[in-house]
């Protein structure tokens, strides 16, 4: 009796508190796909170095005199001992790129005071007083902060570690963000592949591009008979005359570039007339690399522009921010087509390129996400919106609008980090909006082809290794078959058991990839009542009609 009363009170309270909004009680995941953040959630806990900081020091051991956790949540590494360090274990994934922001409260003016070499392959980081950001690729799962020089002290506070990728934020309280893998890049083999754009006859003061080098020395762009851009031993090198040039990598002023995906912005204050443009080939030499989202402006981008470009892909070209005008965009090759031998110039300049040998790399995580854009897909080519012809691609085809959802073209997916809040679900609920005309897909899948929810092949829903499921459509109406009418429909699956799942993937089941829009993916750890199902359907119907 006590249980019945408590459950009733709980249900009443839940409904009362969530009128006209999504039910939040027992909500473990809510992907609204309202935006894509370049950086993920905070990965390091206790970044304030509070007193007795267990995360940074083994609590079973007494810190040496050279490590002092201060009352103001900072840590001081002193010169009492040599080569002292603090660390957090199992916070990094090897070969993954991270952005680290930290504050130096006081330090000797010695750039060798701190090293992250053990963690991110960064030999030297800035140590002047103030806040700094560095980006590197993990070579260890442990994050170390070291003081390697004797005779100097350093006090550090407010460290923040974020993975450099694009995420759809989780709007529940669990931050189970979905990492997005819907970018496309063009891959060049380094032997004989290129894109030839002949003589576009455009002025260049700024060029922006995503690049992933196979090695630290590669040929990137030929611009004229005397101007080109290469990477040489990990340094971006500008050949020819580049007056007052600036180079930004991932929004930071630096010439260093490694072998992970990077966003590069290069500026000069004097126009270069580009008349012999080739991607991945300079003279008779070819580059082994992947390229995406190449933009050329006849205006000089500022550092704030470079930051906007990095943090908000495509915002510059659509005039959503920054100092540069759309009229200054003179070349724009998204390299998102996915097939064919033409690299379309979406700037309107008409300087299409001929793809020779290069092939597309789908499912890229750190380049502009097609899943978060409007695009067209005619003749199997995915073309982005032409900035000068809003609503259409460069060929005049109407776009498939993402309508605030995750706009998949059958070649990408989302990955939700495995978390105890999900694997603890034994009798839960999954809900989502779906707008599809295709008849074969799987919405959510796990680590093997045996774990899936919401799979169909022109017929009924099937679910594998996911509990005893009951399905509903557009509210609490029982349903066994999805609708393929190209309109939005809201589906609910109750009785979901995720306890054996170790991966949580949106549309990454071979031969069942989604070519449709999915939105408002909700996962609860309990079974929603009919009233609650109707509530979630009703409150989000207005934006899915």
């Amino acid at each position, binding site marked *: 009796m006590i249980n019945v009363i408590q459950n009733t009170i709980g249900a009443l309270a839940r409904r009362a508190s969530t009128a006209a909004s999504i039910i939040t009680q027992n909500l473990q995941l809510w992907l609204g796909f309202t935006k894509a953040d370049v950086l993920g959630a905070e990965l390091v806990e206790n970044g304030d170095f509070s007193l007795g900081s267990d995360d940074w020091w083994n609590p079973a051991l007494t810190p040496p005199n050279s490590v002092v956790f201060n009352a103001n949540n900072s840590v001081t590494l002193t010169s009492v001992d040599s080569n002292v360090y603090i660390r957090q274990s199992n916070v990094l994934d090897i070969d993954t790129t991270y952005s680290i922001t930290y504050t130096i409260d006081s330090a000797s003016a010695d750039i060798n005071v701190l090293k992250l070499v053990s963690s991110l392959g960064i030999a030297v980081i800035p140590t002047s007083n103030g806040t700094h950001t560095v980006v590197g690729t993990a070579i260890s799962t442990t994050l170390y902060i070291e003081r390697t020089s004797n005779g100097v002290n350093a006090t550090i506070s407010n460290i923040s570690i974020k993975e450099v990728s694009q995420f759809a934020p989780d709007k529940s309280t669990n931050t189970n963000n979905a990492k997005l893998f819907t970018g496309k890049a063009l891959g060049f083999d380094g*032997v004989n592949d290129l894109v030839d754009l002949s003589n576009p006859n455009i002025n260049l003061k700024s060029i922006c591009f995503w690049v992933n080098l196979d090695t630290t020395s590669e040929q990137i762009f030929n611009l004229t008979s005397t101007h080109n851009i290469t990477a040489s031993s990990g340094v971006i090198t500008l050949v020819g005359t580049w007056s007052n040039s600036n180079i930004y990598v991932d929004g930071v002023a630096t010439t260093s570039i490694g072998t992970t995906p990077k966003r590069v912005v290069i500026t000069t204050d004097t126009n270069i007339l580009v008349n012999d443009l080739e991607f991945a080939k300079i003279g*008779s*030499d070819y580059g082994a690399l992947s390229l995406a989202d190449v933009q050329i402006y006849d205006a000089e981008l500022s550092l704030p522009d470079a930051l906007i470009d990095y943090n908000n892909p495509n915002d510059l070209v659509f005039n959503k921010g920054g100092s540069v005008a759309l009229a200054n965009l003179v070349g724009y090759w998204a390299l998102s087509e996915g097939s064919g031998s033409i690299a379309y110039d979406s700037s309107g300049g008409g300087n299409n390129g001929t793809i*020779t040998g290069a092939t597309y790399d789908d499912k890229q995580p750190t380049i502009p996400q097609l899943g978060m854009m409007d695009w067209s897909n005619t003749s199997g080519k995915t073309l982005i919106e032409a900035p000068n012809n809003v609503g259409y691609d460069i060929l005049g085809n109407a776009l498939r609008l993402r309508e605030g959802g995750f706009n998949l073209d059958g070649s990408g997916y989302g990955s939700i980090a495995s978390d105890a809040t999900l694997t603890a679900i034994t009798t839960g609920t999954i809900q989502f909006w779906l707008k599809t005309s295709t008849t074969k897909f799987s919405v959510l899948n796990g680590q093997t082809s045996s774990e899936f929810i919401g799979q169909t092949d022109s017929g009924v829903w099937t679910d594998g290794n996911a509990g005893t499921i009951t399905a509903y459509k557009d509210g609490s109406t029982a349903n066994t078959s999805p609708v393929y009418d190209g309109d939005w429909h809201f589906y609910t699956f109750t009785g979901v058991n995720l306890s054996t799942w170790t991966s949580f993937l949106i549309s990454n089941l071979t031969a069942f990839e989604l070519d449709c829009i999915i939105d408002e993916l909700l996962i609860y750890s309990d079974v929603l009542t009919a009233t609650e199902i109707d509530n979630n359907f009703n409150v989000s119907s207005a934006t899915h009609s």
Partner: protein
Amino acid sequence: MQGNIFICLNRATYKGLIPTELEGKYSRKVYDEEGALIETLDTTFEQLGADNRIKFGNVIEFKIGAKKYFVLELDCSWLDGSVSALLGLGSNMNYPNNCLMTNKEAMELIKDNQDESTSIIH
């Protein structure tokens, strides 16, 4: 499309006909207006490289001493005998005459002789 193999041909082989095992996939063909095959033409490696440049990339030409060599990218399989046929082209010959190679091996060979390398644009 991406090839899966590279081959470095000497001039004689490059100017010569492709092996019969490659004809089904790479020989030049003549069709009538209805799309029916009328004739299969003799095809050289030089023509194969030109026909498939967009698909596989440029043919890279370089010299070692006075001798010219040509690196082609192809898509071949053991199942249809085409890899074996290409291997046969290089039997009893010295490197790099008609040698099959991987992407990295091709890059190294071209890089080692890059002062003399050019791309063939048809």
